[in-house]
């Protein structure tokens, strides 16, 4: 195995690490999984931050760290897309630009969780506002995620090689993932129901689908690296 495929492997595993850090940060540490109820009164939101201050602050460190570790993984995806597209690669460029702001929101979500928990003597309304911003940053980028998945799916399916660089099922899976993530776009309209930021359609389905997508991407990419697909014609 040469240096390049080792680097690709490392980048891919970086994604697994990022996913784990994000999940540990948001779930057992910050206890924001499932998210706070958007219909919760301002005073109770503030009390939640006061009661879980340390967990949220440590969780914030993990979430912000995870956000940057996603990028080597996304770079590995982009490398595959570039290989598929060849010299003229608009979808790869689109992918790179979309993830550059679509995943940065995760850093800011961690940052706003941190700021909200940082000074517990803040007025309730301020803590609740910072909390709202954190949750919107966490759930609302459904549209960039949708476009990112569509771009990835189309690029993979465009591959006309007898043996495609990435398997075709992965392309289809990206299209379906994109569609199922999309209902998060309307979280600003609701405080209850399936389209609110803790709702079945805006949160649970996207969270589960993202988890499945993420793991299958890693498996498929590692398989492609193992057979040295990037060195093929």
């Amino acid at each position, binding site marked *: 195995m040469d240096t390049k495929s080792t680097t690709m492997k490392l980048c891919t595993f970086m994604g697994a690490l990022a996913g784990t850090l994000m999940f540990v940060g948001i779930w057992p540490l910050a206890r924001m999984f499932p998210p706070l109820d958007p219909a919760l009164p301002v005073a109770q939101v503030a009390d939640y931050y006061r009661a879980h201050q340390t967990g949220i602050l440590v969780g914030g460190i993990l979430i912000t760290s995870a956000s940057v570790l996603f990028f080597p993984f996304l770079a590995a995806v982009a490398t595959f897309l570039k290989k598929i597209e060849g010299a003229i690669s608009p979808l790869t460029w689109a992918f790179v630009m979309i993830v550059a702001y679509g995943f940065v929101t995760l850093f800011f979500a961690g940052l706003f969780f941190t700021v909200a928990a940082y000074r517990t003597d803040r007025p309730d309304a301020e803590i609740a506002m910072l909390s709202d911003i954190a949750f919107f940053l966490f759930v609302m980028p459904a549209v960039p995620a949708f476009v990112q998945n569509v771009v990835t799916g189309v690029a993979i399916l465009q591959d006309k090689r007898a043996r495609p660089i990435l398997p075709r099922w992965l392309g*289809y899976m990206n*299209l379906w993932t994109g*569609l*199922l993530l999309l209902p998060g776009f309307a979280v600003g309209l609701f*405080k209850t*129901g*399936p*389209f609110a930021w803790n709702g079945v359609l805006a949160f649970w*389905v996207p969270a589960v689908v993202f988890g499945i997508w993420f793991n299958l991407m890693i498996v498929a990419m590692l398989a492609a690296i193992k057979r040295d697909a990037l060195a093929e014609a």
Partner: protein
Amino acid sequence: MTTAERRSGGHVPGEEGLWVFIGGDLVVFAVFFITYAVAHRQEYALFEASRRLLDRQLGLLNTPLLLTSSLCMAQAVAAVRRDDRRARPLLLATIALGSGFVVVKAFEYAAKISHGFTLNTNSFSIYYYMFTAIHLVHVLIGLGVLCFAASRFDKAGRMPGGAALIEGSGAFWHLVDLLWIVLFALLYLL
């Protein structure tokens, strides 16, 4: 592709990828419908009371509009396949009926909103507005696709080599129709 090849079985109308997209869309709506069914069980009385506020006449009017448009669509696909000049008027009729659906929907929304039944009135209204609006976006996309297809006819009213385009547009339009049938039954009737 010749007619003989088409009839030999194994022919996928339109593009293979389109069917995967349609499958994905059906998965999304299946998840929507299950969510609705669960909520309906949990808040039975509220859902039943709110459902009675919906305008069944307008909903009922929209159903034959879409069904007839789907029929015209199917006839248009068949006409393009046999190189028949009636394809274009049939496709335009599909577009007209589909546009009628949008107009009726606009009147329905306007009436509901003026009666104070809005997006966040209760948990039923969230489902009603979001599901029908997401469906309406499908209708609008479908109309866009059909208009594009309608622009592909030559001066003689034929579409040489346009079978894949018209079949793909048709498949998407039937999806829009199918989703409405389920939505109508679920929200207005059941």
